[in-house]
């Protein structure tokens, strides 16, 4: 498979060639559109419908360019996949699971020879094989790519690459604690495994709790009063890490193995009212914008209002 490192980054800085990408003068410029199919191994296939003009497909000596958002244009921040005719005037690009895509948000562009990269609009994303994905836990790593539609209506791909990985599953909240079940990929939780709650922005403050492991499964429970203890005000976050053994590196706990690119507002859990030393708070688990698991301790406005 070809990666951007093997190809000159032509096009990125080249001037737009009218008539190839933007169409006839005066014609409405319709952006390319791509349907996307995911396979259960983590590979993606893009079927690109070039702008609807006769001959457009032929003119597309083309590539699908994935550009990492926030990247600085370094070779590692771009991945170029050849687009080959797939019948019906469509062009196909494949991103096999074997090609590494570093973690991040990758914007999808279509590039034709000498043309400027053009943002791709989403078509149909068929991601059913990502649902309830069960990669082989014996493999030391997990690679996840989820195509999604950005706020501006463009196609991007969210990528995670974790080796090893701790996948969160069912979460149960009680009045004073949260318990989490999950699975490890890579290194299983040993007898001295712990979960570390690290107070964000305050690396010195860590709370730990024991982890029960059985094969690749793990469970743990975190006490809310412990996390609410140091609360100073506003909204504070505790990031959850699994340390499988005393001598092992800690692994960020996240939920990655499905088709939902952004879990934060979909996988939500009740928060519990609690009285912290510094006032009333609400405590509850949540997924970050990177789909990692954290616990939020936040000022309880409802109790304020009630007082």
């Amino acid at each position, binding site marked *: 498979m070809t990666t951007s490192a093997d190809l000159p980054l032509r096009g990125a800085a080249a001037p737009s060639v009218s008539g190839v990408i933007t169409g006839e003068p005066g014609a409405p410029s319709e952006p390319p559109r791509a349907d996307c199919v995911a396979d259960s191994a983590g590979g993606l296939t893009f079927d690109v419908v070039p702008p609807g003009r006769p001959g457009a497909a032929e003119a597309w000596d083309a590539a699908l360019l994935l550009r990492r958002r926030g990247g600085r244009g370094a070779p590692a921040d771009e991945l170029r996949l050849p687009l080959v005719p797939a019948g019906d005037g469509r062009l196909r690009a494949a991103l096999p699971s074997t090609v590494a895509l570093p973690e991040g948000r990758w914007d999808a562009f279509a590039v034709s020879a000498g043309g400027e990269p053009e943002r791709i609009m989403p078509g*149909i994303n068929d991601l059913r094989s990502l*649902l309830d994905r069960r990669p082989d836990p014996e493999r030391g790593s997990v690679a996840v790519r989820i195509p999604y539609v950005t706020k501006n209506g463009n196609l991007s791909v969210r990528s995670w690459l974790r080796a090893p990985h701790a996948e969160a599953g069912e979460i149960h909240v009680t009045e004073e604690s949260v318990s989490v079940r999950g699975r490890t990929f890579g290194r299983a939780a040993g007898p001295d495994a712990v979960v570390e709650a690290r107070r964000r922005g305050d690396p010195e403050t860590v709370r730990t709790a024991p982890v029960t492991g059985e094969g690749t499964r793990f469970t743990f429970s975190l006490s809310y009063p412990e996390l609410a203890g140091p609360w100073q005000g506003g909204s504070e976050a505790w990031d959850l890490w699994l340390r499988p053994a005393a001598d092992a590196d800690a692994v960020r706990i996240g939920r990655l193995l499905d088709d939902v690119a952004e879990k934060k507002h*979909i*996988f939500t859990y009740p928060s519990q009212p609690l009285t912290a030393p510094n006032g009333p708070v609400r405590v509850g688990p949540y997924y970050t914008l990177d789909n990692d698991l954290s616990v939020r301790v936040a000022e309880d406005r409802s109790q304020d209002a009630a007082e």
Partner: protein
Amino acid sequence: MGTLRDSELRGRMHISFLIHNAYGIGGTIRTTYNLARSLADHHDVEIVSVFRHRDTPVFEPGPGVRLRHLVDIRKDSPSYEGEDPAYLRRSKAFPVAEGRYKQYNELTDRRIAEHLRSVEADIVVGTRPGLNVHLARDTRRGPVLVGQEHLTLDSHSTRLRRDLRDLYPRLDAVTTVTEADAEAYRRGLRLPGVRIEAVPNSVPEPGVEPADGTGKWVVAAGRLARVKRYDLLIKAFQQVVADRPDWRLRIYGGGAEKDKLRALIDRLGLYNHVYLMGPANPLDPEWAKGSIGAVTSSLESFGMTIVEAMRCGLPVVATDCPHGPGEIIANGVDGRLVPPGNADAVAGALLELINDDALRRQMGRAALKDSARFDPSQVAGRYETLFRELAARGGTRGGLRGRLRTSVQRSRGALLGGAYAARAALRGGHTA
């Protein structure tokens, strides 16, 4: 043009749709585009949009379908008409009791009337009651007039129903989306000489492979509105989880009930099993991730999501509410119908399909097959037949074969129109 000669009956028809706003999002727009696109394979089809609020329509009207507007309300357009004095004066022609009355005005009165007095079409189709009223009053002699009802008669106020009773006799046909509503029109409005016909909404073949029935997901989709009764579905799902914790539920859509539903999910402790997914477009790939569809509404004018799910190969468990579900689902064959408002019954039917893999897959295959009748080509075919038959008997207000009936019809129409005018005068308006 008037009547079509026999030789022309088999030929191309010129069909003109009149729609509130073809540039927005909504079921009527989508279904009108589906129909127009299919009809355009063999006919000249135009869609005339009363309003235009954006440059490009949200949905693609399709090749061969001409789209134009009557009133431009794009603020940044050189031909913006939103501040025209006539635009700011209340409508005198649009029925006051119609849901969209406030958006209509003297400018729309005039533009719609001008359009219909000169329309070059064999068939003119109105897509909501207020526009059907315009069709009845303003269209020149000749074209066949078809008024579509996308909601239901019983959803209209008494006052609107009275207006429709007065003016619909001037139409050649009224179409509803269900037989139940067609029957309501036949019994409730008595429109002699007007053909009342149920033609369902169309749903195109999805752009994804159908579901294979192996995923342990139930899927629902629609506005998070009270009438959809997602609270009932969530309560039913609590019973499902008690028996089959390996199954989960996804509800797609946004709306006013979201916070309440979220609170219900949390209160019942279902946050590992029931997910509010937010809006999704297109929906087909989301249906295809499920193995069972669920619709627990207290009212469905048609039941578009039932058909959408079936077209993706899902058997649907639906409440047998008015009006659509019972006409879409063959109970026990390609889905399950349960009494409205009964969480136990919903849970029972879901579990029946969850606990019997073979039955679920068999019903899924039946759903796929049975829902093909809603394909745009099939639905357009039914409209085409209706249009041809109406054209053959002559438009209500023109035509040779229809002339005798027409004169009677017209005088009665004029009389009834007079009653409508008298009432309009009482409310301070006048009829054009």
